[in-house]
């Protein structure tokens, strides 16, 4: 892989985080302008001279020079980071202060500081995630919109509101204050979890976008792992969950570009390095007394990863893990996944019973709810009823991949003779 791939996107988050610490969080827009400016310069210069040896350092140095210009020019007109006191106001101290502020040690925690600041409790979870994606991952408004399958106007509004909330907070989150830190950490976990999930299960039709979201979530989780206060058991569990799922990404799309359900996947395509890494994080997460949903979800993923073949899956263990998950973080989707595991363990009739016991109001627009019903009716020998469910699933399918997957299932139901050959199918939910 080209080490410079997504260079600007990656560096945008680092640069804007550091600049915001120097300028103060109320000058977020100014920090973004400086980043934009440094990128334009890089493009102009590198066109002619080629990409420098260390492009990331080049960009940060350019941002530093620009920052110094801005501080000199506007030190009487603006106030900058109040925590830096008067250092930036005097011509004598501004240059050495900036030098110091951009030093390797100083910028180490800047992204973390920004991440915690974005996960402000005054913002809705979806706004926090959009902000993380925009500020720390360098996604443009259009790219965030396509990741969330939302309109640009809606995302623009969400992000600009969120930025105002952020800019009004007096200062960036202090990552050294232990008390606040552990209080804010669950929100950060949640945002990264949602970011990963959007990539993994999200409705975006472009598989490339989805994989990138997963990778960004993993990159930011690594920042947490590298920080003494943030590397808690829950953070390790979150990392485990991401790595164990990411390991399956190469198997999710089959050779003809179609979505492949977990039980049908070619498991030799799973990334064994990521499985091993995920397993290591899971082991590290098993300290302390706190059991989070991330622990349980990672444990479920680990059971799947352990089974070299679908038939070897310990479905009984998976059902009991879902039971635990239902007590920690109950939701209709978790209940549905549990029902699917029950069907694998005890047969389609039992699966149907479990699905019918779920309050389906919030699942009506979820294609894999109908698909699961279709699957189990089909396996119980009722292809006509199964077809009805698959049609309902198709009506709420969110993208081409889902549609193709469901059309394929519908076609199978229309060939009753083939019934026996696909009794091991299940909906994609755990894929």
């Amino acid at each position, binding site marked *: 892989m080209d080490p410079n791939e997504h260079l600007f*996107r990656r560096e945008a988050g680092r640069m804007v985080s550091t600049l915001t610490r120097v300028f103060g969080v109320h000058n977020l827009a100014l920090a973004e302008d400086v980043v934009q400016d440094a990128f334009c310069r890089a493009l102009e210069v590198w066109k*002619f001279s080629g990409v420098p040896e260390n492009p990331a350092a080049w960009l940060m140095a350019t941002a530093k020079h620009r920052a110094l210009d801005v501080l000199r020019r506007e030190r009487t007109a603006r106030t900058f980071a109040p925590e830096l006191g008067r250092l930036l106001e005097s011509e004598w101290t501004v240059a050495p202060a900036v030098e110091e502020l951009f030093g390797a040690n100083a910028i180490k925690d800047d992204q973390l500081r920004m991440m915690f600041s974005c996960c402000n409790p005054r913002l809705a979870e979806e706004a926090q995630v959009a902000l993380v994606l925009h500020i720390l991952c*360098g996604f443009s408004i259009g790219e965030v919109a396509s990741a969330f399958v939302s309109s640009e106007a809606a995302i623009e509004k969400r992000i600009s509101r969120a930025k105002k909330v952020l800019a009004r907070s007096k200062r960036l989150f202090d990552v050294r204050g232990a008390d606040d830190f552990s209080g804010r950490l669950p929100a950060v976990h949640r945002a990264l979890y949602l970011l990963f999930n959007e990539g993994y299960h999200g409705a975006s039709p472009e598989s490339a976008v989805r994989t990138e979201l997963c990778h960004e979530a993993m990159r930011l989780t690594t920042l947490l792992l590298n920080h003494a206060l943030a590397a808690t058991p829950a953070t390790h569990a979150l990392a485990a969950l991401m790595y164990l799922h990411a390991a399956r990404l190469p198997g999710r799309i089959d050779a003809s570009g179609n979505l492949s359900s977990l039980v049908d996947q070619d498991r030799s395509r799973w990334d064994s390095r990521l499985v091993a890494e995920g397993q290591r994080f899971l082991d590290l997460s098993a300290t302390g007394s706190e059991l989070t949903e991330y622990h349980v979800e990672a444990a479920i993923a680990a059971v799947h990863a352990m089974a070299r073949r679908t038939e070897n899956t310990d479905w009984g263990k998976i059902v009991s893990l879902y039971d635990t998950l239902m007590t920690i973080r109950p939701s209709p989707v978790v209940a549905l996944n549990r029902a699917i595991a029950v069907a694998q363990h005890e047969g389609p009739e039992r699966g149907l019973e479990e699905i019918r016991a779920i309050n389906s109001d919030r699942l009506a627009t979820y294609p894999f709810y109908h698909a699961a019903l279709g699957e189990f009716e089909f396996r119980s020998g009722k292809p006509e009823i199964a077809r009805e469910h698959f049609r309902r699933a198709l009506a709420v399918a969110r993208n081409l991949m889902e549609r193709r997957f469901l059309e394929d299932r519908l076609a199978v139901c229309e060939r009753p003779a083939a019934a026996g050959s696909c009794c091991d199918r299940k909906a994609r939910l755990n894929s």
Partner: protein
Amino acid sequence: MGQFVYLYRGAERNRSPEQTQEAMQKWMAWFKQLTEKGHIKDPGQPLEFAGKLVKGKQKTVTDGPFAEAKDVIGGYTLVEARDLNEAVELSKGCPIFEVEGAVEVRPVMKLNM
């Protein structure tokens, strides 16, 4: 063979990081292609968009920019080509056109004519 100067007109502005990346890769690819075919005499330099204009007998000094952003020269490259036609054809691969920019192709005057 003759020598020609490409003058790049128009500024790159308001791109997302990923778009900057794409533009970058396209410029690299275009330069590489011209280099491999032996057309690049001197890759040239980028120019700042602001400067000063010194003018007239009075040598009046005024601030730049002197034209609209889309007309400002942002850099130059010295290329070698068979004739003006070829130089023009080669310039058409320049990614600047994707951002409404322009390339001015100017033959270097030959002294021995």
